[in-house]
Structure formats: structure tokens, C-alpha cells
């Protein structure tokens, strides 16, 4: 069943939804990256909630004019309009009043959504029979998706993606360093507004599939996931688009494979699964990598301290140090150093002395800054420099009784 869904064998509607969700996921992942790097991820929450009154008003206007109130293009146009108004309100609140951005986001979100709920109840009492579809915009409803709806979503997603690609460079510059961008003469305010406009476009396109409450997840989770895997912004954009598209595709397929699996939430949960995997398994920034790095560091410290202790003839009691030394064949089980152990510990002590001289010498100031008690001195000084330092330490001297 799942395999059928993954290979798009599960009927017309499921195929439409899967294609739409994939495109939506790619567009949302790519657009969301700029929002995330600009550290304004939650602005999308306000924008998406602000679409509700527009959807309702569009329905009322279309129904009043005698048309079909559920025309998707009309509803999406209405939602875009009210999301734009919400965005302008939020910008005005943050730039003209003392409110911080989070308060502006929260107030726009709750007020627009509350007003939308009022309009929803008005529509329910209007007595127009075919209003049932509107609640579907809250959480998305893919059951009755038509060919035309899928086309609207696909075209909207593709157009958004093309626009993002067109203005990705100025957006990236603003996301990283708005002051520098302003100094270069870029219109930072307008680029920000364009970024939000693109986010709004993704939100509007996604209303039908994942709904206005959960579209935020598609804009936030893939970029956060992608950030774990790379330090390069263009790679973040690519990986984020890929993760978003894959989540959309897998989620749509999963939800088609069994009853009672709503598409929107499943897509979000698949996306979250990718995030959780990345959080733990990513090569450099992941939790597992950090734990491994810590263990390796701990071992190096213990090893180094153990060797120094051996060189100075001290007995080692610390169990981890003993175990490490024994495993490396440097001490015998009773704690007495082997021949290699003696050689390595003598070298460690000499290195420590070399470092001491380097750190006391003004001429080696830059090198001395690299000292952390673990670094091998051969990695920072040439053989000649080490020989020079060794001359200052001097060779072993005869001890006269």
C-alpha cells in the first residue's frame, strides 16, 4: 500500500496531492531559509494566521455576487490581500511604535485570526449552503482536490520559486548583514518586504494542502534541518528545498496509504522526523557528533596527563587514565610503564618543557597563543625551530654523587 502510494499508483487524487505537496515543500523550504537566516522565522506565523479573514471575506463577496463561493483562485486572492494587510500592520507596529517584533507578531496573529473566526460564524449564519469547505483552510483538506486546484498550487509554487531565485542574492545579503547591505545602497526595507511577500505567497499556496496553522512548520522546520548539515548559505537553501520537497512527497504518500491520516499534519511530522534525525546525527553540529567530540577530547586530556604523571614517576590512580594507557600498551596491568610508555612519557615531558620556553619567549607570541595543553608542538613549529628550543633546554647531564 505504502509502496503504491510512493510510486503514485494510488489513484488520481492521491497523485495530484503528492505532486502539489512536493512542489509546495520545495518552495516553502527555499523561501523559509531566508526568513530563518534573517532570524524572523515566526513572522510567518503572523502572516499565515492573517489569511483567515481574507478567505472569509472573499467567500462572502463571491457568494454575494452570486458566484461559487468556493472558487480557489478567489479565496487565495482574498487571503493574500488580508495577509498583506496584516504584514503592513506588523511592519507599522514595529517601526512606528515602541513594540518589539514579537509583540507585533502576536497581536497581528491573534487579532486577525479572531476576526476571521467572527467572519466564519457570520458565514455559518448566512445560510449559504456550501460553506462547509472553509474550515478546511484551518488544517488543510486534500480530499476533494481538483485538477484546477492542483494547477493553481503548482503554478503558484513554481512562480514563487522563480522569484526567490531572481532576488536571492540581495535577500541573502540582507539576511546576513543588514547594515552592510544598507551601506552598499540596497533598499533593505523593500527587500525585507519582498521576502515577506514571498513567504506570504507560499502561505497562500499552501492553504489548501496543509492549512494556515501548520504552513508555518513547512517554512521553519526544513531550513533549521538544513542548517545542521552545512555552513554555506547556498547549500542551506538547496538542502532545505530538498528536505521540504521530500517531506511533502513522503507525507502525502503516507497519508494516502491509510485512512484517517490527514495530509497536513503528516507532512509536518515527517518534516519534524527529518529535523530530529539531523539534530542527533548531523556530522558537525549534531548532538552525536558533539558527544563524540567531547569523549575524544576527554581521552586526549587523560592520556596527556597520564603520560606526564608517568614521566615524573607518580602513581596513577584514576581509572579512566589507567585504562587508556593500558589499552595503548603504555603501562602494564600493575601500573608500571612499558618501554614504549617510558619513551612516550619522556617525549611528553620534553614537549611540555619546549612549550614552556615557547610561551615565555616574546618572539613566539603568536605560536604561544595556540597552546592548550594538548597540541603537539610539531604541528606548530618547524624542525629547525624545535632544534633551536632544544638547544636552549640542553641535553641530559651527568649526575655526580
Amino acid at each position, binding site marked *: 500500500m505504502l509502496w503504491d502510494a510512493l510510486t503514485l499508483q494510488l489513484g488520481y487524487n492521491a497523485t495530484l496531492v503528492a505532486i502539489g505537496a512536493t512542489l509546495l515543500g520545495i518552495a516553502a523550504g527555499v523561501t523559509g531559509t531566508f526568513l530563518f537566516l534573517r532570524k524572523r522565522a515566526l513572522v510567518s506565523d503572523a502572516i499565515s494566521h492573517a489569511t483567515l479573514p481574507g478567505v472569509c471575506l472573499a467567500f462572502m463577496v463571491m457568494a454575494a455576487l452570486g458566484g461559487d463561493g468556493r472558487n480557489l483562485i478567489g479565496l487565495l486572492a482574498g487571503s493574500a490581500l488580508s495577509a498583506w494587510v496584516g504584514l503592513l500592520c506588523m511592519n507599522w507596529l514595529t517601526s512606528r511604535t515602541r513594540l518589539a517584533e514579537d509583540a507585533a507578531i502576536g497581536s497581528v496573529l491573534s487579532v486577525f485570526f479572531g*476576526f476571521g473566526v467572527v467572519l466564519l460564524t457570520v458565514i455559518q449564519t448566512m445560510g449559504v449552503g456550501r460553506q462547509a469547505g472553509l474550515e478546511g483552510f484551518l488544517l488543510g483538506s486534500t480530499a476533494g482536490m481538483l485538477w484546477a486546484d492542483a494547477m493553481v498550487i503548482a503554478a503558484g509554487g513554481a512562480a514563487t520559486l522563480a522569484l526567490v531565485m531572481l532576488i536571492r542574492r540581495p535577500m541573502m545579503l540582507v539576511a546576513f548583514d543588514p547594515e552592510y547591505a544598507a551601506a552598499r545602497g540596497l533598499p533593505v526595507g523593500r527587500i525585507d518586504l519582498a521576502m515577506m511577500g514571498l513567504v506570504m505567497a507560499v502561505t497562500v499556496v499552501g492553504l489548501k494542502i496543509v492549512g494556515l496553522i501548520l504552513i508555518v512548520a513547512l517554512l521553519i522546520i526544513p531550513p533549521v534541518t538544513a542548517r545542521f548539515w552545512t555552513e554555506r548559505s547556498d547549500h542551506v537553501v538547496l538542502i532545505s528545498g530538498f528536505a521540504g520537497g521530500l517531506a511533502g512527497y513522503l507525507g502525502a504518500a503516507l497519508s494516502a496509504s491509510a485512512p484517517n491520516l490527514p495530509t497536513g499534519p503528516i507532512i509536518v511530522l515527517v518534516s519534524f522526523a527529518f529535523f530530529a534525525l539531523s539534530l542527533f546525527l548531523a556530522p558537525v553540529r549534531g548532538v552525536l557528533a558533539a558527544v563524540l567530540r567531547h569523549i575524544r577530547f576527554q581521552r586526549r586530556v587523560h592520556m596527556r596527563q597520564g603520560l606526564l604523571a608517568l614521566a615524573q614517576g607518580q602513581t596513577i590512580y584514576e581509572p579512566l587514565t589507567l585504562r587508556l594507557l593500558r589499552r595503548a600498551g603504555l603501562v602494564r596491568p600493575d601500573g608500571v610503564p612499558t618501554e614504549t610508555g617510558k619513551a612516550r612519557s619522556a617525549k611528553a615531558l620534553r614537549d611540555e618543557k619546549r612549550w614552556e620556553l615557547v610561551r615565555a619567549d616574546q618572539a613566539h607570541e603568536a605560536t604561544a597563543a595556540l597552546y592548550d595543553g594538548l597540541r603537539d608542538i610539531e604541528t606548530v613549529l618547524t624542525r629547525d625551530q624545535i632544534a633551536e628550543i632544544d638547544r636552549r633546554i640542553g641535553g641530559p647531564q651527568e649526575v655526580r654523587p
Partner: protein
Amino acid sequence: MSGAEFVPLSLTPLLIGIFAAVACALPGNFLVLRKQALIGDAISHVVLPGIVVAFLLTGVIAAWPMMLGAAGAAILAVVLIEAIRRLGKIEPGAAMGVVFTAMFAGGVLLLEQTDTSTVHLDVEHALYGNLESLIWLDASGWSSLLDPEALAGLPVELPRMGVTLLLVILFTWLLWRPLKISTFDEGYARTIGIRTNLLGLALVVMAAIAAVAAFDAVGSIIVIAMFICPPAAARMMTNRLERQIAWSVVFAVASAVSGYVLAGYGPLWLGGTDAVSAAGMIATMSGLILALTARFGPCRSRTGAPSQA
């Protein structure tokens, strides 16, 4: 309108609305000042999986398990946000966005998977509550307020919301000085021995309690609106915290009363027949108040600091 009609039908929803609004607005003042306003948003989203899990475990729609479930989910969300923020070195806004959307999606999925057709539990109810249905059928007029028999039939949400409000007031009153100091100058608060981490957590937990109790009665949309709009509007009116809190209470009560009245009677005045959603209308009114204060409030503009947030 006579007491015989007003007391049973409108008094209790109105009081519950006012209590909920004030209980959310009080901690909201500190959250807005600390730039944590969206915690309320996050909490109100994760309440849904909390109550669904509580329902699955107990099998009944009862107040206490659900409130416990919701509170548990809220605390879990706060812990997860903090963990993701620290483990993944992700900025707090994005961490919050990841956690609450995923938990909300989980809640919706659980709800769809379980058979809740026999009970009243759905997403719409969770979002915008049902303030209008909290009526007091045993009352027959103002005299019922003194009648113990009729008082026993009060909707349970009213005393529960009242207790929550008292708790919030007590919390704010007892911890007034530390809260005020740590909100404005965290470094100074630490040097005089206030444990700011603990205090911050206590504030979030208090907000969660207010949110969960209010959510049970009026839905999450009021919760978010009341956490942010009245304090934000009050912020435009004054530069003193004491007055800001007083203003926020005034605004919260004003939006609750005007919203409820407009939702109930507004459509009738306009020639309609049915009421519209009271919760949505209260949120809308709080937004109108915020818009007015943002346009005309005496302390609306930023002084000193540049506009970059």
C-alpha cells in the same frame, strides 16, 4: 434587558470572559516587556496534544485530567524549546516554531486517529472555545446570586477561572519586586541575589496555568490575544510599570465586555438573527484598542534607542 434574562444567559459568560482576559493580561505584561510574548502563542498550540493525550488515557472528557494533560504538554514544550535551542544552537524563535507546530500536528493526528465522534472534542472547539454555552440555567434573576441552591448550578468554569485569576494576582503581588527588577535589568537582579532563571521559569509556568485554565473555558484564540494585546496597548499609555498593569487590566476588561456584547447583540442591531463568535469578537476588540493606542497613545513612540530590534 431584565435581570431574569441577563443573569442566566449572559452574566456567567461575561464574568468568565473578564476573568480569563485579566488572568492572561497580568503575566502578559511581563512577557511583553521581556520579549517573550510568543510563549503564549506556543503554549496555546501545544495545549491541543495535551488534552487529546489526557482524553486517550482516561477515556472521558473531564476537566482535571485535561488540565493536567494541557499543563504537562505546555511544560514539555518549554523544555523541548530550551533543549533544541541549546543542543542545536538555534535561535529561540525558530526553535519555538519547530516545537509547537510539530506538537500541534501530533495533536491533530491523534485526534483524527481516535474515535471522538461521541464526545465533544475537536480542533475548532480548541481554537475558539465556546463562551456562549457557559450559561447558568438554574438562575432566575438577580436574586439567584444569594440563593445557594441556584449557585450550586453555576458552570464549573466560573469558579475555576476565578481561582486561577486569584492565583495569578497572588503570584504577581508576592513576586512584584523581583519580577519588576529582573524584567528591566536582569544583570542587576542577579547581583542582588535574585535567581532570575528560576523566576523566568516561574513566570512561564504561571502563564501556562493561566493559558490552560482560560483555554478550557474560552479557547486558545482569546488566550493569545489577551497575553499580548492589552499589555501592548497599555505600553503605549505610560512609562510606569504600575500604571501599565492597571491600564492592561482596564483594556482586558473593556475588550471582554465590549466583545461579548457586540458578539451577542451586534448582529441583532444590524438586523441579523444569530450571534457571532464571542471569543473572536473579544480578540478583535482588543486589536481595535491596540490600534487606537498605537495611533494616539501618549507614550507610543520609541525614545532614545534606535528602531532596530
